[in-house]
């Protein structure tokens, strides 16, 4: 049964990717991208990668198609032109590369074998000792926020930098050259009363669920990355229904931009505190006499920093794109 579900999901993934090759319209491609995200997340679930599935569900199926859509809307769909000559060179290149890679896969350990090299080095240590060293059930969180915390700091910095880059490339609401608020009350031909009411009921639960994911990440699937994306999607939902100027009044862009930096700083400071005590960077045992309790506090702080940064950066990126979309239409 597992094999069947697994293979069918993979076939559907290939079919979706094939459809993406054939389809030319950008809006259709965006919808297929959303389906692709949902499928790959389901596949991650069947591979026991619950945390990854969590992230891919929020990113691949939610935020990523939305950003694509806002881009497509801002550049005005880019009407697909008639199919040109068949790109024979590309087909040949792709076929040869693919064939070589498939020959290469034959040297890999069979799928699912427990004695593959990937499972014999660090992973057994994490699985056997993280229970007593870190004291939390979710091994992915212990590796992410403690064993490999320095690596994660790098990832968070990349996300922060990407947010800064988007801000540099695109104007955000309130900046010079950005769209003036054009949403006067009643400017919508028909307000979406039903959508607004239902979403108003649901948004608090979405934000609450994001907090649950944030703070339950030590015990179940979840953590700062996932919680940040879910929190940001709550804000994005509000913005979509009430317009950019309204959501900017509720969650000010300046505040969000500051918070993006605050998250990174919180992460870095947590690491530096250990150095003040003469320990290595990001050694959490400084926070309490009991090293396991210290790990708990450290992971909590670090995950909070990740969550704040991710939520703010995604919100900022949404603001920048939505602003472009409104300028393009205005």
């Amino acid at each position: 049964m597992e094999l069947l579900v697994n293979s069918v999901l993979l076939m559907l993934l290939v079919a979706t990717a094939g459809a993406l090759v054939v389809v030319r319209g950008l809006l259709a491609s965006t919808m297929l991208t959303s389906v692709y995200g949902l499928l790959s997340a389901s596949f991650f679930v069947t591979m026991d990668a619950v945390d990854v599935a969590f992230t891919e569900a929020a990113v691949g199926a939610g935020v990523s198609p939305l950003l694509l859509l806002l881009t497509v809307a801002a550049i005005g769909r880019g009407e697909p032109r008639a199919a040109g000559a068949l790109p024979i060179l590309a087909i040949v290149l792709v076929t040869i590369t693919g064939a070589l890679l498939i020959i290469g896969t034959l040297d890999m350990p069979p799928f699912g074998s427990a004695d593959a090299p990937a499972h014999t080095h660090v992973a057994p240590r994490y699985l056997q000792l993280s229970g007593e060293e870190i004291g939390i059930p979710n091994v992915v969180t212990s590796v992410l926020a403690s064993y490999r915390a320095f690596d994660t700091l790098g990832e968070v910095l990349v996300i922060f930098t990407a947010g800064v880059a988007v801000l540099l490339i695109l104007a955000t609401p309130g900046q010079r050259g950005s769209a003036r608020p054009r949403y006067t009350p009643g400017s919508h031909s028909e307000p979406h009363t039903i959508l607004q009411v239902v979403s108003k009921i649901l948004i608090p639960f979405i934000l609450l669920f994001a907090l649950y994911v944030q703070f339950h990440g030590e015990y179940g699937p979840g953590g700062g990355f996932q919680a940040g994306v879910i929190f940001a999607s709550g804000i994005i939902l509000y913005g979509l229904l009430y317009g950019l100027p309204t959501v900017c009044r509720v969650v000010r862009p300046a505040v969000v931009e500051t918070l993006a930096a605050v998250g990174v700083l919180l992460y870095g400071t947590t690491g530096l505190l250990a150095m003040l005590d003469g320990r290595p960077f990001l050694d959490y045992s400084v926070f309490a006499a009991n090293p396991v309790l210290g790990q708990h506090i450290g992971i909590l702080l670090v995950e909070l920093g990740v969550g704040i940064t991710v939520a703010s950066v995604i919100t900022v990126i949404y603001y920048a794109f939505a602003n472009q979309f409104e300028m393009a239409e205005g």
Partner: protein
Amino acid sequence: MSAVLAILSGACLLLGSFLLLTGALGFLRFADFYARLHACGVTETLATALIILGLMLLSDSYLPPFKLLLILLFVLFSSPTASHALAKAAWNAGVRPRDNQGKRDLPLPAGER
């Protein structure tokens, strides 16, 4: 007791799957956007409720059914809303009901444009 629960849950799952299949058939075969929306929008709510109920009857601890209940509540809220929003957006964009072959727009009642 557990045998009764298993039979009940099996019945729920079977009925739910059947409804899903009918909805998918309509979604694939119907000629017109609103008919397709009707086919999957209507069957979806009941099928989801039945399947989630069937799963709830299978659980032996208290947390999974609670989470399933949350999922059910959320789907019951969001699914009809999404269908409504879809129909409204399509209507506003100028999509009109078609005849059975999907070839021409149906005449609309007086007063509608």
